[in-house]
C-alpha cells in the first residue's frame, strides 16, 4: 500500500527528496544537539553517573535485577490467575442462557471501563482493611489484584473472539455426530481456540508487563521502576537510570511483540489448523469497553 501513494521518482522528485532529507536531518541534528548540550550542561553525561552500569555489577545485582524479578513475578502471576478467570468469563458470555450471559457481560464491560490504577488502589486499601496480609506483601497483592481484574476481562474477550473465529463447520460437524453443547465446547471449540488466540495472549503479556510499572510509581511496589528510583537516590544518575530501565522494557516487550507476530504468521500459514487466528491488530478492540469481536467465522472453512 505504501508505495502506491507515490510514483517512481523522476529527477526532480529525487532532488526534492534529497532536499527534504537534508532539512529533516538538520532539524533532527539540531534537536539532538540541543539535548546533548542540555545534558552536558547539567553534567548528566559524566562518566561517574554511567559507570555503575558498566564498570561493576553492583548496580545490576542490588537494584536492577531484584526489581526486574519483581516485575516479572507480578506479570507472570497476573497472567496465570487471569487466564482461567478470563476463560470462564469468555465462555459464560457465549452461553445460551440469559442469566449466565448477561452477568458475565456486565462484569467484563465494567472492568474494561475502569483504569488499572484505580483497581490497584482499591486492591491496596482492600487488603489493608479486610485481610492480615503483611504491609510488605500488600503492594504485590494489590498490583496482581488490579492486573487480574482488568486482564481477566480482556482475556475473556480474547477467548470469546478465539471461539467465534473458528469456522462454523466445526460446531456443525460436532453437532451432527451427536455431541452435546458442553461437549462441543470442551472437546472441539476450546482446544482449537487455544492455538487461535496464542498471538493475542502473548501481546497482552506486553500490556501486563508495562502496567506493573504503575505499582512501582504509585503503590510502593518494588519493581524495576521503583528500584531504579532508589538507585537514582543513591547514585544521582537520573538520566542514565531511566535510559537503562527504558532499554530493558523495550528489549522485553519488543521480543514479546516480535514473537507474537511470528506466531500469528505461522498460524495463518499452518495447514494443520483451520487458519483462524485472533490477530495482534484486533487486541486494541478487545481492550476497550463497548467493543465486541466480530461475530461469525473469521477463518476459512476447509471442507
Amino acid at each position, binding site marked *: 500500500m505504501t508505495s502506491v501513494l507515490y*510514483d517512481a*521518482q523522476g529527477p526532480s522528485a529525487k532532488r526534492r527528496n534529497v532536499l527534504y532529507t537534508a532539512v529533516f536531518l538538520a532539524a533532527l541534528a539540531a534537536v539532538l544537539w540541543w539535548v546533548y548540550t542540555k545534558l552536558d550542561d547539567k553534567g*548528566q553525561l559524566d562518566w561517574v553517573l554511567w559507570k555503575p552500569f558498566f564498570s561493576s555489577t553492583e548496580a545490576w545485582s542490588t537494584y536492577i535485577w531484584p526489581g526486574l524479578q519483581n516485575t516479572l513475578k507480578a506479570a507472570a502471576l497476573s497472567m496465570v490467575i487471569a487466564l482461567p478467570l478470563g476463560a470462564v468469563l469468555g465462555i459464560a458470555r457465549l452461553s445460551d442462557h440469559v442469566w449466565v450471559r448477561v452477568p458475565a457481560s456486565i462484569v467484563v464491560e465494567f472492568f474494561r471501563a475502569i*483504569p488499572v490504577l484505580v483497581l490497584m488502589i482499591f486492591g491496596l*486499601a482492600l487488603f489493608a482493611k479486610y485481610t492480615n496480609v503483611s504491609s510488605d506483601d500488600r503492594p504485590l497483592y494489590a498490583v496482581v489484584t488490579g492486573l487480574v481484574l482488568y486482564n481477566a476481562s480482556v482475556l475473556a474477550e480474547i477467548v470469546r473472539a478465539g471461539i467465534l473465529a473458528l469456522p462454523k463447520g466445526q460446531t456443525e460437524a460436532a453437532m451432527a455426530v451427536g455431541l452435546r453443547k458442553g461437549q462441543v465446547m470442551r472437546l472441539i471449540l476450546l482446544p482449537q481456540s487455544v492455538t487461535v488466540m496464542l498471538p493475542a495472549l502473548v501481546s497482552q503479556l*506486553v500490556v501486563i508487563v508495562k502496567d506493573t510499572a504503575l505499582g512501582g*510509581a504509585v503503590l510502593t511496589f518494588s519493581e524495576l521502576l521503583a528500584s531504579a528510583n532508589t538507585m537514582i537516590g543513591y547514585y544521582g544518575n537520573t*538520566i542514565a537510570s531511566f535510559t537503562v530501565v527504558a532499554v530493558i522494557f523495550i528489549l522485553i516487550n519488543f521480543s514479546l511483540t516480535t514473537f507474537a507476530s511470528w506466531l500469528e504468521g505461522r498460524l495463518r500459514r499452518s495447514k494443520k489448523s483451520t487458519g483462524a487466528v485472533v490477530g495482534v491488530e484486533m487486541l486494541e478492540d478487545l481492550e*476497550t469497553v463497548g*467493543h465486541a469481536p466480530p461475530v461469525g467465522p473469521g477463518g476459512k472453512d476447509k471442507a
Partner: protein
Amino acid sequence: MFDFLDGYDLLGAFWTTVQLTLLAGVGSLVWGTLLTAMRVGPVPLMRGFATAYVNIVRNIPLTVIILFTSLGLSQTLGINLGAERFESINFRLAVLGLTAYTSAFVCEALRAGINTVPVGQAEAARAIGLSFTQVLRLVVLPQAFRSAVGPLTNVLIALTKNTTVAAAIGVAEAAALMKTMVEKEAQLIPIASIFALGFVILTLPTGLILGWVGKKVAVKR
C-alpha cells in the same frame, strides 16, 4: 450518607482528568498524523524515524515516560514548559508525556485506516497527476480518517484511562484523589464505587457515541 465526600473536590478531580484527556488527545492526534505522514512517505529518513519512534515509545511503560518528564526533564534538566507553579508544571509535563505516548498509538490506528483505502483510489489520484502530499491530503487521509474512527475511539478511551498515571507525578486528578480518600476515610466500597462509576461515565458514552459516528461516516464499499 455521603458525608465522607465533604471537603473533597470530586468534580474538580474529574475535570482535571477530562482536561488531561482533551489536551493530550488533540496533541497526539496532530503529532500522530504527522508521524503517519512521515511513515508512509517517500523520504526514507523520515520513514525510519517514524517507525523507530512508534516501536520505541509503544514498548516503554507510560509510567516510565510520565515519571521521566518529572524527574528527568523538570527536576534534572530544568525544563518546566514555561510554568512556574508546581501544579501547573506537573500538569503540563503530564500532557507532554501522554501526548508523546498516545501519538504512537494514533499513528498505528491511522496506518491501519490507510490500509483500508483501496489501492485504486491512490492509483487514480496519481494518474490525474496529484503529488504525494495531494494524494494524502485530498484522497487517502480523508477516507482513512473515516475508517479509523473506530480504532481512534479505542485510543481515546485508553487515553482517558491512562490519564490516571499522572497521579504518579502529583497531578490532582481522579486516581490521586481516590488514593487520598481511601487512605483517610473509612468507607472503602462507596468511595471505590463512586470513582469506578465516574470512569464508566467518561468511557462508556465515548465508546457508544463514537462507535455510532464511526458506522455513520464509514465509507460504504
